[in-house]
């Protein structure tokens, strides 16, 4: 009754190993920024992780919408996988932002609009993951998570807009922003290489995480059908009275 899950492919990991090696080398040898000095090298991990965090959540929204349309659990598993990876990259981006902020501005945290929004997103999707833990009914879980995934679509732009408007009134943008770095061609190329390596990491993780989601679903089904009276696709057997 349980279809053996095929293992996710190996090629993304090979590609990741190569691209990560190239990206780290490039990030270490490229010339330092005139203003930021060696610290500018943090750019090559901070910006890609922030970018991927938002991409991952975007994928979650798309997959949620696909689930609501098609009602196929495969879309739900992709939404789930992407959300979890997104939360990890969001945490990474926030952590790296802090590591960059401390030597640059002397504080771990600034109320930059983008940083604030990232932190809020972190909690929105933490809530999404928590919601998924509240029921074992695959369909109900998928539907509820998808509705929250789409609710985030409509609400997050409002959060973004309100935060940006709030900060523009309260904080004149005097600080050096990461994206304020005057980027020459070699830095830009390095950033792109790094972005490619991070995206490869995302793809490789997606394959693995979707495989895990599939296994977990199979496990739930298997555990349910061994104690339930009506097995998934099993040959029906005469029921013993009170067998439930």
């Amino acid at each position, binding site marked *: 009754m349980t279809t053996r899950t095929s293992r996710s492919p190996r090629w993304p990991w090979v590609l990741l190993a190569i691209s990560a090696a190239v990206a780290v080398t490039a990030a270490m040898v490229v010339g330092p920024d005139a203003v930021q000095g060696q610290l500018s090298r943090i750019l090559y991990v901070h910006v890609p992780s922030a970018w991927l965090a938002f991409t991952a959540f975007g994928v979650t929204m798309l997959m949620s919408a696909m689930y609501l349309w098609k009602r196929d659990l495969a879309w739900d598993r992709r939404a789930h996988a992407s959300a979890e990876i997104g939360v990890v990259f969001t945490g990474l981006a926030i952590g790296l932002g802090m590591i960059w902020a401390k030597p640059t501005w002397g504080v771990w945290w600034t109320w930059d609009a983008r940083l604030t929004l990232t932190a809020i997103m972190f909690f929105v999707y933490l809530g999404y993951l928590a919601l998924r833990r509240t029921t074992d009914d*695959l369909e109900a879980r998928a539907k509820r998570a998808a509705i929250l995934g789409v609710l985030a679509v409509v609400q997050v732009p409002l959060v973004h807009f309100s935060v940006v408007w709030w900060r523009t009134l309260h904080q004149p943008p005097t600080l050096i922003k990461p994206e304020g770095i005057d980027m020459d061609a070699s830095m830009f190329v390095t950033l792109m290489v790094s972005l490619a390596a991070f995206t490869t990491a995302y793809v490789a993780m997606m394959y693995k995480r979707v495989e895990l989601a599939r296994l977990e679903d199979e496990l739930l089904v298997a555990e349910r*059908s061994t104690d339930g*009276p*009506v097995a998934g696709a099993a040959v*029906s057997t005469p029921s013993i009275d009170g067998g*439930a």
Partner: protein
Amino acid sequence: MTVPDTLVELSDVAVSAGSTTILRDVDFTVSSGEAVGVFGANGAGKTTLLRLIATLVRPSSGSGSILGAALNTSDVIDVRPAIGYVGHLPGLLPELTLIENLQLHAKLQRRDPEHARSALASVGLGGAADRLAERCSHGMQRRTEFAKVLMAGPKLLLLDEPHSALDQDAVDLVDALVERTVGAGGAAVLVSHDRPSVNAVATRTVEIADGQLR
């Protein structure tokens, strides 16, 4: 509304929740004037079958119609007021009194709530009308459910374990309700694990096991 001759028609219907199949290969027809008893062990799919007929569960495959409205379409909303469903557990709001529960139901169906008190009296709860539902016994709550059905006068009566938690008076009342509905050209489906109690009123019986009728 006009009642079609065939009140329930299910053909090759399956119901699954998640990846578990609860009902499958269900072919089931109930005609006007019938009271069908459905027997089966706990977990055989009785309650799901009843909720399927009550349009509360969607079939995952197959087709069917209830009171002439095709399942899985929005037409079922129009026929719901003609369905009298009494589930295994009472569906009363605990913080409302018995009479308020009946009035709420009537108002939601846009019917006159005036007969609520006499309906309660006819199930022997005239004296408890203003008691909060949460302070009533399980049996009293079930009687109130039957009063709700009595007020609505449904064409299709769906009863889950109709005699559980009821004393003999109430059992007779339920049986009379079934006979009255069936006599008026309606139909009833009664599911139970307790064969003798339902045999008395059923005009026909079927068995359900492992989610299949036989």
